[in-house]
């Protein structure tokens, strides 16, 4: 056994950068996803319930 940095340490350094890259990718993917609750129509009201909010009653 030696205290000098060897092949295994290089491997760990490489791994660290790969892991960091993967974590960043995961974060980016997570932030691009819609919160699942907002896709659940049993939880969220999607359509505005009043007709007045969906049409224009003024002749313009």
């Amino acid at each position, binding site marked *: 056994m030696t205290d000098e940095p060897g092949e295994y340490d290089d491997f760990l350094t490489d791994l660290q950068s790969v892991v960091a890259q993967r974590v960043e990718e995961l974060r980016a993917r997570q*932030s*691009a*996803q*819609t*919160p*699942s*609750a*907002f896709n659940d129509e*049993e*939880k*969220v*009201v*999607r*359509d*505005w*319930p*009043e*007709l*007045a*909010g*969906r*049409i*224009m*009653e*003024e*002749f*313009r």
Partner: protein
Amino acid sequence: MAIRGSLTEASLPDVLQLLAMGRKTGCLGLTHANNFGYIYFTDGAISHASIVNRGLGTEEAVYLLFTWTQGTFNFEPGATPDDEVQLHCIDPQSLLLEGARRVDEWALIAKKIPTFDIVYAMDRHKMMEIDRSLTVEEERLVPLIDGQRDVSAIIAESRLGEFVTAKTLYGLLTTGYVLRIGVSSRSRAPARADDKATEHRNLGVAFYKTGMYEEAQREFRRVDTLRENDPEACFYLGLVALRQQQWAAAAHAFERYVSQQHSSRPSVFVNLAYAYEQMGELDRARTAMADALSHGGRGDPLVQTNAAAMAVAAHDYETADAALASARSLWGTRRPPPAWFHYAGLAAAMVNDLDRAIALLGEAVQVYPSYAVLWNNLAVAYEARGDFDEALSTVERGLIEDATLPQLHRNFADSLQRDGRFDEAREAYRRAHSLDAL
């Protein structure tokens, strides 16, 4: 829920007292023969009243409406007057006593002045015989009682109002100062079709605004007969059909407007798009909305909001977000309507900007606290961000506004489950399920 009834069953004073005690907000529409009047209420106080085609002020209109003892009434909750009308805050109780006095006096006046097309003239000899000084109102009326003007013209020119003019005239008739000459030529001539169409149009608009859609439809069909392909009649017939959920009829009315090549109005295309959307014709709906935007709608925040609602339905949240941002800047310092907040919150959440969604929906429930839908979606946004205590209290607040919204019970159940309150959660899931099945 609208309240309808007959004035022979419940008098106007009874209805007014009921609405005042219940601190109601909305519009009370009244019909009497071919006449229509309406009274707007804000928290039980009268904010505006009018009788169609009569041009009366609020108090005068209410007093005249007291004389309508036959006909129907219809209360449409939540309806508010147009922006341009002058608003008042009158306690209905304060009008009841004077109203009752006027009803009695009108009964007497009507015996001598049965219609407003009668023409009167001054009897100068009689005036010389009787030595009596004239009142201020009489001084105003005497120059107008000239054997030419009928009562309607005298009312219009004296600016004393119907009641004071008729009462003063009644006094002059009783003392013999005034003689009946005949009826005005205007009343003998048949009304011009265009004038009649305008009267029906005014009635139709008033009926529509007070939620009396069948009556509005009847009036606009008359306009349509008198003025073929009248653009406003097409528009309102389309609106009535939308209100009655007759989507194909609505689309037909708006298509008729477009095919007549009347001046382009984005509102017609927005409504046509909504009718198509409800019919499941999404391509045509998108085309109509594109027409709305290209016919002046880009600068109209309501058109942009409706375009955003359609984009949300198509899961195109980036487009929706951009249209809503445009609408908000077009409104400037004015407060957007609740539907804008709803779609803005939804679009922000769907592009995973939960902080913005919470800020928007938080603002929405401050300015529109009675909309349970806004509370519900705010609670979901809190839950998605991991603010579970906020989510629970928001759901509970929403349930106070509307305990019939299934999503609120579902979210309440989820919060209870998270807290380990399993029995209560099971009950809430059950309520959500049974409301959803309705």
